[in-house]
């Protein structure tokens, strides 16, 4: 197996808070990798560093053998790394279909964008296919701002997929959505993974992570604690300690599900 996405010795401080301290992470090509850890352990910051939203103080990020440390988010996306956000971010005053069309354009220069219409028929068809894939085609012409939370999650997933990235970073895809939708999302991820897409998933829902992921990395206090198969990680005393003994006032669910 080759490593597709790799963070090495990444550190980042916000004022006095060391959000990341020499953190390592490897995502193998074609895998579904889980990233778990207590709240505030630096998972989202690591995502932000890898996708260019936050500059690392130290360390490197490599993608497919190329050093992409410090790349702007649009460049990172153009390379083939798509991501979603923990709090879904969609374009509320544009239609669902227009949301989809935004993501396609990394293929062309900005000047070209001025002289062409907002979509070709092929692009619309492609966008509709992906909407269909996540099951929200019927909402295509609505303002995205009128979607429910779960529908927004699906839209965010769809408009990342429409750009055909090689690796997709999902920040809490199951957060705040009902069980049926969680299963639906998990199923979609498996389906895409079977087609060769690589996933890196931050998630608090242990059942979701343990069932879905090939390998799991646990973070604690800004660094990677343990990596391995879900079953091994689950039994690791360090992990139990990080979750249970860390003194974090996390919600009860994840502590229970780690035990269970």
């Amino acid at each position: 197996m080759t490593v597709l996405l790799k963070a090495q010795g990444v550190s980042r401080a916000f004022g006095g808070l060391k959000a990341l301290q020499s953190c390592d992470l490897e995502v193998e090509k074609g895998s579904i990798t889980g990233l778990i850890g207590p709240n505030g352990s630096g998972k989202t910051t690591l995502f932000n560093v890898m996708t260019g939203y936050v500059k690392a103080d130290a360390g490197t990020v490599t993608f497919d053998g190329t050093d992409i440390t410090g790349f702007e988010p649009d460049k990172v996306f153009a390379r083939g790394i798509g991501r979603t956000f923990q709090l879904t971010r969609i374009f509320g005053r544009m239609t669902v279909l227009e949301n989809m069309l935004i993501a396609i354009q990394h293929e062309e220069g900005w000047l070209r964008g001025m002289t062409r219409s907002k979509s070709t028929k092929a692009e619309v068809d492609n966008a509709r296919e992906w909407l269909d894939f996540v099951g929200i085609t019927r909402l295509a012409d609505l303002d995205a701002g009128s979607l429910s939370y779960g529908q927004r999650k699906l839209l965010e997933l769809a408009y990342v997929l429409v750009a055909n990235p090689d690796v997709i970073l999902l920040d809490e895809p199951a957060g705040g959505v009902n069980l049926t939708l969680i299963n639906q999302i998990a199923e979609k991820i498996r389906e895409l993974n079977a087609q060769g897409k690589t996933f890196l998933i931050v998630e608090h829902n242990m059942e979701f992570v343990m069932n879905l992921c090939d390998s799991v990395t646990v973070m604690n206090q800004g660094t990677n604690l343990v990596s391995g198969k879900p079953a091994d990680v689950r039994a690791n005393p360090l992990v139990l300690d990080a979750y249970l003994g860390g003194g974090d006032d996390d919600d009860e669910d994840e502590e229970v599900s780690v035990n269970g």
Partner: protein
Amino acid sequence: MTSKLKYLWWVVALAVFAVYPVVETNPSDQTIGVYTLLFMACAASWNMFSGYSGYIALGSSVFYGVGAYTMALISIHAHMAPGAAMFWLAPLGGLVAVAFAIPIGWIALRVRRHTFVVITIAIFFIFQLGAINFNFTGGTGGLSLPFIQWNTSYYSVPFYYVALGIVIFATVLSAVVRRSRFGLQLMAIRDDEDRALGLGVKVGAVKLTGFALSAFAIGMAGAVYAMFQGQIYPQFVFDPTFDVSVALMSFFGGLGTLTGPLLGALVLESAQQYLTATYSNNSLYLILFGALFLIVINFMPRGIVSFFIDRRRRALAAVAASASATPPAPAPSNVGSLV
């Protein structure tokens, strides 16, 4: 059918504007027409960037003034024969405005929201101070352009049609941008700039292009204004109330819509000019405008045009819902957000 009907409305509106100076031969009413059209062009062009992208620029009179001074300085120093040939300087005024907009945008667009607004205001005052204090601008005394000796009974008419041409240009440009991918990118920036960046939108280039593009028609309007007046003063072409007016006209009509700024400028500027001319009272319109704005902001927070579009959409959705068993389309949720 509905889209055909929409085109018909545009044609009717254009026809009304085209025959106005023929029907209305009173020179002072024709003058009101010129000012109204100039503001319509500026509001439409301002909206093409600020309305679509959400970057509320309050320094657009910089471009108006630059256009005006381009017209004045070149016509004076080139000893141009007073007359219609001077209209050719209007596009040049637009281009000079764009040339100024590029470095201004490059600086101002590094910041967002309130900071952006403040920076554009600051840049505006730099230009006003410059125009007052430099020698080549004539200082507070301003500049006198070559005197055009057209008959006062039809003096305004050529300006009216040139201004109408600028309005058409600004409107067509807004429509084209709205339908282009570039316009889609501007609106994505308005909704969530960071997310747009993360989906590959080159936000820096897109913003700067939109900003510079919107300066063109405003510069042209400024140039035509200078020629129309025959005399310009720094405090009138670099005018803070111009900045606010253009923005308010767009808010009033409907920020980010195609017809909103046109409608806002048409109603507000013609009303202001009419009231000023009729009652020779410069501040009467302020009272009326205040009342009008209170009503619009309270009951139609997204502007008049958006208000009616929303209502029509809801009505259509209700019809669709009662016609089929599928759940009704939820109404747009962001009513109430102004910027």
